[in-house]
């Protein structure tokens, strides 16, 4: 459709056409106030710990939309590069898309340069991207990975803030998780200790926070490779349906039945010759 009022081609990227309308709708008259639908958030507990040989990342698997659990088996540990994984808290779509874009950029980089990307490069790209949008992209991320300089754990906030730490928890359940981590973290732990520490931290978050729940996922990143354990611990309250709830045919009694004939009128008849290769 050709519009006579368009003078320049539309800019690619975010489209702000509806923001005036949205403000008018939200501030409308007293009876007419319409609230915007809330995006799906991953009210979450995510945690990460640097241990002797690498990094262990953990996350719960519940995604909430206001007061309803929207997804019971949400995957919050996203792949960034073969040696870098990222846990995301905040708005589910934002974390998903941001980590996908980051992963694509790092793949192009590794194809161009022939090297595995460093964790600090991923962090810098994320910082630039998130600061550009002044926190409108609600992505709270924990990046962990092992590269040629060692094992690293970083957190990036939605406004572009960055922190490099040996152990970390983020999300709505981060306070109880941080408590466990502060209590039992030691430098240079071994694998089983680190896994149980992260798992207990996420478990504390699940128990004390409404927005976190269901299963616990773990991701162990070392120089040799990645072990993505999904699920590491299943929730004992998994709801399995007790019976089949499909109705048998004939459950609903038929009260009346009327049959009417639909009169069809032949409008047009075309004959098309088909080319058939006759084989004798």
């Amino acid at each position: 459709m050709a519009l006579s009022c368009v003078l320049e081609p539309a800019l690619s990227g975010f489209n702000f056409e509806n923001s005036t309308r949205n403000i008018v709708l939200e501030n409308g008259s007293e009876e007419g106030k319409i609230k915007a639908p809330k995006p799906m958030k991953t009210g979450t507990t995510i945690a990460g710990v640097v241990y002797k040989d690498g990094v262990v990342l953990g996350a719960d698997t519940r995604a909430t939309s206001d007061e309803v659990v929207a997804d019971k088996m949400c995957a919050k540990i996203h792949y960034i590069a073969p040696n870098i994984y990222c846990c995301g808290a905040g708005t589910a779509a934002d974390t998903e898309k941001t980590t996908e874009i980051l992963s694509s950029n790092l793949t192009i980089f590794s194809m161009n340069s022939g090297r595995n990307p460093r964790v600090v490069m991923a962090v810098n790209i994320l910082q630039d991207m998130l600061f550009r949008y002044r926190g409108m992209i609600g992505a709270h991320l924990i990046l962990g990975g092992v590269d040629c300089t060692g094992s690293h754990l970083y957190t990036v906030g939605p406004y572009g803030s960055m922190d490099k730490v040996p152990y970390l928890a983020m999300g709505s359940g981060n306070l109880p998780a941080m408590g466990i981590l502060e209590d039992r973290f030691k430098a240079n732990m071994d694998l089983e200790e680190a896994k149980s520490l992260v798992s207990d931290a996420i478990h504390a978050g699940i128990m004390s926070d409404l927005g976190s729940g269901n299963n616990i996922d773990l991701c162990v990143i070392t120089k040799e490779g990645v072990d993505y354990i999904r699920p590491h611990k299943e929730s004992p309250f998994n709801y399995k349906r007790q019976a089949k709830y499909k109705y048998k045919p004939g459950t609903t009694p038929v009260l009346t039945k009327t049959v009417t004939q639909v009169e069809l009128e032949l409008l047009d008849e075309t004959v098309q010759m088909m080319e058939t290769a006759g084989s004798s």
Partner: protein
Amino acid sequence: MITVFPETDRKYIYADRKDEPSLKMNTRGLRSQLKDSVPVTGLCPQAGPYGVQDSLRRGFSSVKNELLPSHPLELSEKNFQLNQDKMNFNTLRNIQGLHAPLKLQMEYRAAKQIQRLPFLPSSNLALDTLRGSDDTIGFEDILNDPIQSEMMGDPHIMTEYKLGIL
């Protein structure tokens, strides 16, 4: 009769046609006169598909609505590339001297002129390669791809606007 204004940095709001001298058009190098400034308001800001106020989609029109953006990021996103370039060229000038941004800007201007007609999407390959954005992916590559846009501007009006005849 219309005058073609040379490239300036003015904000293009309305073409004032009160006194219209005879037609003076510099046909040589017409392409080099294509505008590269970002206009603040278009010609019919509230217009919908039929040229009148589109109250259903845009709300009631007011001068404030048309001048000020309603979303905090709108202006900064519109001018993001320009501002980035300005910042980078400034830094480059401070580090390497005036010649470095001058040479680069000359190349950018040359690459920017490799365009299709205004209403067709151009790939901007040379410009992308110069900027280094041919091996990065951002939201501008995924969202609102102009190649997949459902709306098209009227070819005549867009070309006239680009050439400044409108």
